[in-house]
């Protein structure tokens, strides 16, 4: 059985002379959360909108749940759920009416339980115009998942949400994933992408600059892990350059900060130095490069974030 739910092969999208997406290929398997990352204008929204059947591709092949989005729009609607980044509802419609309205078009009973689940119980009969940005996004999500789609497209789903709503949304996404829903997530929130996605692709100038699991992508970068050390007597403050194989980057709030490509030997060397100088370790923190660091490294042409090691 073929479990590929989203197939994108040599996909191209142009707007006049401007090529927004140029020969992109990737596949998403059933039950996977796939993160699509990239700076503004990288081609994320064009890719999503062609997969959702909102725009026509200019080249390549697209398939969503076995359906060609550009040719079988009606069939596609029952299989996908979409939370658009830019969408709206009539000002006077209430969340309860909106749920009734769209569920009727999907041929199902209204899922008012989703409004409760996403914290909209008290706003059921409030006009859409009077909802906050976060409430509007939660309503859009409730409407997107009401018909239990096989594939869910989420474009910046947590933008404008408070912490509690984000946690609830992430929990809902994991629940949907456990039920076999495939999720394509476009986001600027790297922590969200790293925490939720099974695999991610970073789009840059309409092409895939990196793809894989978050761990694979971060490992493929400059590979420098941040090691922060604090000692009782601050012996490391004077040790810059005198520990073999270890170069200190900065002193920050009583911590000596190092960047290392090989963490094990670096930590051993640091501990050895501290002990040999009659000092004692108070705190040791090891932070591997995050997806955000790797993203910045890719989008800045390999330069990473400004706070990285300068030598």
């Amino acid at each position, binding site marked *: 059985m073929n479990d590929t739910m989203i197939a994108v092969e040599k996909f191209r999208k142009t707007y006049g002379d401007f090529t927004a997406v140029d020969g992109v290929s990737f596949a998403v398997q059933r039950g996977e959360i796939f993160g699509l990352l990239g700076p503004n204008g990288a081609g994320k929204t064009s890719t999503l909108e062609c997969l959702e059947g909102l725009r026509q591709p200019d080249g390549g092949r697209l398939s969503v749940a076995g359906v060609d989005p550009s040719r079988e729009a009606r069939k596609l609607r029952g299989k996908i759920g979409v939370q658009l980044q830019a969408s709206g509802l009539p000002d006077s419609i209430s969340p309860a009416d909106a749920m009734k309205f769209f569920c009727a078009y999907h041929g199902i009973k209204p899922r008012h339980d989703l409004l409760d689940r996403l914290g909209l119980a008290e706003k059921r009969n409030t*006009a859409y115009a009077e909802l906050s940005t976060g409430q509007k996004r939660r309503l859009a999500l409730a409407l997107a998942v009401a018909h239990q789609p096989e594939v869910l497209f989420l474009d910046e789903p947590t933008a404008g949400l408070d912490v509690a709503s984000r946690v609830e949304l992430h929990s809902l996404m994991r629940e949907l994933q456990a039920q076999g829903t495939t999720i394509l997530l476009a986001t600027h929130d790297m922590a969200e992408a790293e925490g939720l996605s099974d695999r991610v692709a970073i789009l840059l100038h309409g092409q895939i600059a990196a793809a894989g699991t978050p761990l694979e992508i971060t490992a493929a970068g400059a590979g420098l892990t941040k090691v922060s050390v604090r000692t009782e007597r601050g012996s490391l403050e004077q040790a810059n350059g005198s520990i073999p194989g270890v170069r200190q980057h900065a002193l920050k709030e009583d911590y000596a900060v190092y960047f290392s490509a090989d963490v094990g030997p670096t930590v051993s060397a640091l501990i050895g130095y501290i002990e040999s100088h009659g000092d004692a370790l108070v705190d040791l923190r090891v932070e591997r490069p995050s997806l955000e660091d790797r993203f910045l490294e890719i989008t800045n042409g390999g330069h990473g974030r400004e706070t990285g090691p300068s030598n």
Partner: protein
Amino acid sequence: MTAFANHTWIELRSSLRNRQLLFLTYAFPLAFYAMMGLIMTEINPLFTATMIPAMVIFAVMIATLMTLPDPLVTARDAGILRSYKIHGVPALNILSAPTVTTFLHLAVVTAIILATATPLFDAPAPTDWAWFGAVTLASVVAFAGLGVLIGVVSSSSRATLLWSQLIFLPSMLIGGLMMPFDFLPAGAQTVARLLPATHAMNAYNGLAYGAAVPFSASASLAILLIGGVLAFGLAILLFNWDRQNRTARLHPAFGLLAMLPYVASVVLL
């Protein structure tokens, strides 16, 4: 309840909460009707004979040309139509639901005019009620078709106003609402035949009032229906979910084809 019935019901409830729409659909045409009844019947006694159809057509024009196009442009710009598309709401339903609710509102306004025009202003009632209903329905179809077409092809709210006024103002001046078609100079008569209002008045006079008319009343009725259906068809064909989507099937200028039945009437009638 079917999806369309539910859609229309929600549309109707929304329209009842929309003060601007209620003003344009009820207050403005009924106030104009009362003013015309008080003043125009004194100035021009001939007006009394065509007062009921003229005021009904006025109400139809206001409710369709002034209220249908702009919400479509606003919905497209606000991303509402994109939301509809991703949930599989057909373009036909998006255009039809407000048309049906407009028809329901107009039925109330027409009933008020019919119930009050004779006792208040001595306006003659129709001699054939069935034809009166048929012509009213055809007029709503014709003007609503043009209203949704204007909404679909217009790039902004200002453009909807411009196109609507292009039909509304000549209709008021030479469409037979204020003065009979026969009183117009030959050149103006030719232009008047391009207007749905002229055909609606001609159909009312010939079919619902049994009066002598300058050209075939049945043909006018047919032109209204064909024109309305053609305008709806073109609106669906030219429908664009998204302002940024430049992959529309046809250029908006194809909307002008909706005038074909009216142009044909100049040549054939």
